[in-house]
């Protein structure tokens, strides 16, 4: 089992390397990249906004529950700011894009594999990696940091609403605590995390789709595996990124 795991990781690495080589050799079609990025941004925005809204409200409620016992209401704003910006929002946007764009990419590639369309590209002397994997990869790398920043804004906004209306905190004080605990470095770190997640999401979903078994069962199981692996890898990498960035 361990050798199989190591072999898979090796193959995945090789796939990433091949994608890089393809992009280098055949050039990047920036019109496709921007198309992917804007498609992803538009399609994911609604769902992400809803999720960010509720993450903000949850953080405020939990912060309040945890810190009101200490008699330190000011900590609520700080908790929401730190947890939201540094950890939750990058992961939230990452998970969302993994669930939506990642699975879509895997399913689409797996269907193309099933219907021999990837083979058809190769026979037409067109590199399928440069055609099918590189544009979404770069598109996700552009869209995810932007979506992360948007989700941060929405989550912080909804936390203010809950703090003021549901928890009865003073508006001015709460916003002060919120804003004074967010630095430019925090936002940059969130973007760096988003970039790393983007690469993981696109390459993992590309890999599982590209080498999927043929047929409906193959499509289903490739999509299934891809989304689980993306979640695990992103959450684990998040820990290491946090220790490196804030350690």
């Amino acid at each position, binding site marked *: 089992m361990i050798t199989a795991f190591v072999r898979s990781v090796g193959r995945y690495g090789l796939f990433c390397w091949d994608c890089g080589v393809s992009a280098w*050799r055949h050039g990047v079609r920036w019109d496709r990249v921007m198309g992917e990025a804007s498609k992803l941004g538009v399609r994911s925005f609604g769902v992400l906004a809803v999720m960010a809204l509720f993450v903000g409200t949850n953080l405020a409620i939990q912060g309040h529950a945890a810190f009101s016992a200490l008699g330190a209401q000011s900590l609520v704003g700080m908790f929401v700011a730190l947890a939201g910006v540094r950890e939750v929002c990058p992961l939230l946007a990452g998970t969302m894009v993994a669930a939506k764009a990642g699975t879509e990419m895997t399913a689409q590639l797996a*269907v193309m594999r099933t*219907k021999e369309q990837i*083979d058809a590209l190769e*026979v*037409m002397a067109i590199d399928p990696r440069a055609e099918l994997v590189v544009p979404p990869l770069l598109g996700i790398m552009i869209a995810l940091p932007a979506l992360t920043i948007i989700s941060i804004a929405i989550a912080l906004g909804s936390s203010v609403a809950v703090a003021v209306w549901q928890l009865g905190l003073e508006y001015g004080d709460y916003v002060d605590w919120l804003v004074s605990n967010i630095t430019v470095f925090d936002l940059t770190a969130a973007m760096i995390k988003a970039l790393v997640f983007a690469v993981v999401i696109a390459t993992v979903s590309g890999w599982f789709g590209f080498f999927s078994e043929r047929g409906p069962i193959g499509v289903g199981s490739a999509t299934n595996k891809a989304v689980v692996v993306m979640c695990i890898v992103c959450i684990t990498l998040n820990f290491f990124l946090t220790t490196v960035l804030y350690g």
Partner: protein
Amino acid sequence: MAEPVIRFQGVSKSFGSKVVLQDLSLDIPRGQTTVILGPSGTGKSVLIKLLVGLLEPDEGSILVEGVDVATATEAELFEVRKQIGMLFQDGALFDSLSVADNIAFPLRRHTTLSDEAIAAKVAELLAKVGLEGIEELMPSSLSGGMRKRVSLARAIVMDPEIVLFDEPNSGLDPVTSDEIDALIGRMKDELGMTFIIISHDIVGTFAVADKIAMLYNGGLIADGTPDEVLHSREDVVRRFLKRNMELPPL
């Protein structure tokens, strides 16, 4: 016989413990139609995938226009593939592109033709395969026979030297199947390209073939003109043909 355009030399391929091709040697003559026959599961598709470099042989060499695709670099392989068109079993049309965009796809990526020239070429090819005026349809709204015709138009759009047909009759009703056979026969006369047809459909095969190679258990059991194959003394060949044809007495 003309100089071979493709030459398989001692090719072997197995998946795990399953041997699919063993020490197979075969020449494909230029400008003629070669049919590779055999019951399903005898490695016909593997042969075609080896030919275009989608699979690598375990042993042997496959020379396409003098280039060994088994050892070619990616760039060499791409050059070889530009001389090959392929009709896939279910068409392999791109679902997100219209019929016209599907046919124009290789032109847009490999040539600098103007949009008008491309549109004209697409219309000409659609007429050739008997489907005028369906440029704007999407692949999902085409019938199986139409998908194969469009796929054939896409396969010959770059005027390739070699055209591969992977089971052109599979999944079609007998009437449509006959129409496709007739189309292949007409194309063969019009285009003068090298056709390689993989099939288990015997009647249609003998109508268009200049040469027939029959695969069985990973090797060739017959290799020659239709007439030679009809008179083969090989037991398996006779049994395979007998189901569908009147065999001449030995």
